């Protein structure tokens, strides 16, 4: 597990894949690391697998397999408190509270990661990666990424 904590997300290189909730756990017999994709089409999934592979190899765990598990599906609830704090420090508004509800309209006030103002608006539901939306702060006028509740 401590080896995996050194593997950072390729798209958000300040948060480890453990803190993002991508690592589901490790199994001892036969040895395997269980990982789960955030979004089904997330292109980072392959990059993450390669990064895990090389981290394991370097730490001398060459025989450990990497298995993908889909169930239960990943949601933003899997992101740790530390992960949320790291996202915020990196300039990405972390998802607020629980996973998205079927209604999905998450119009709850989102704090700007730069100035902290709640006077913000959504610009686009889709952003630079599948997991983020584009927002804009109406106070400091800076655009920012928001990790979507999912």
């Amino acid at each position, binding site marked *: 597990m401590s080896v995996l904590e050194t593997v950072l997300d390729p798209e958000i290189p300040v948060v480890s894949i453990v803190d993002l909730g991508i690592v589901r756990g490790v199994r001892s017999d036969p040895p395997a690391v269980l990982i789960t*994709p955030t*979004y*089904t*089409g*997330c*292109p980072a999934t392959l990059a993450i697998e390669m990064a895990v592979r090389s981290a394991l190899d370097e730490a001398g765990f060459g025989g450990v397999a990497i298995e993908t598990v*889909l*169930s*239960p*599906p*990943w*949601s933003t609830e899997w992101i740790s408190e530390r992960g949320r704090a790291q996202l915020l420090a990196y300039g990405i508004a972390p998802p607020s509270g629980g*996973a*998205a509800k*079927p209604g*999905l*309209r998450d119009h709850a006030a989102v704090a700007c990661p730069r100035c902290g103002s709640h006077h913000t608006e959504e*610009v*686009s*539901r*889709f*952003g*630079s990666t*599948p997991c983020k939306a*584009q927002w804009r702060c109406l106070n400091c006028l800076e655009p920012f990424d928001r990790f979507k509740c*999912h």
Partner: protein
Amino acid sequence: MRDDNALFEYALRLGDDSLILGQRLGEWCGHAPVLEVDLSLANFALDLIGQATLFLGVAGAVEGKGRDADRLAFHRDVLAFRNCLLVEQPNGDFAQTIARQFLFSTAQVALFDGLTASAEPRLAEIAAKAVKEVRYHAELAADWVIRLGDGTEESRTRMVDGIDWFWRFVDEMFEMDATERKLAAEGIAVDRSTLRAGFDAQVNAVMHEATLPLPEYPRPVLGGRRGHHSEHLGHLLATMQFLPRTYPNAVW
């Protein structure tokens, strides 16, 4: 006894719907009317291709002939594709693309909601994963139907035309045949015919908000599930399959 042929067929249908629509939406990349829409449609395409990879992976495993998702996507001819006709239709203008997306995603949310209870765990877990993404698609597409329908005279005309054109392909998304009836009886497939009333209610509500008239249902166009496709699919596959077929062992 479990019928692996039927399950293979069903997984192909699910995977091909997502694959072909994902490929179509990819054509918008860099061409959408505004940046926000460009990002949205590219994200939809990505989600759909992710679903296709998983469903076709199941199909290949069930078939047991060593074909993986890539093999099924890139080395199958047009007659072997099992997607519905709606998804292979050309993008047309933006309103047509939105009409197609709205009808498809609204139906797909209902289908995946049902599929999460499938007796086949591999399908159930893909559906549970993907349904959260597809809800975004349905919601964004509905927003645009309303914005264009209740917009200018020009946008409204185009939205009416878009819905009108794609309306004929709706029935096929709810078509049941012997294969799916058998799987539905076993609790593996969703009985698509039971989803129709909910679909109609949702579509009617959005159309009402968009101040758009409901078109009459024309004679439905069917055949995709049996491999009877429009000529558009062949052209799409020619583009999509060119590289892996020309350089069969190409890797990234």
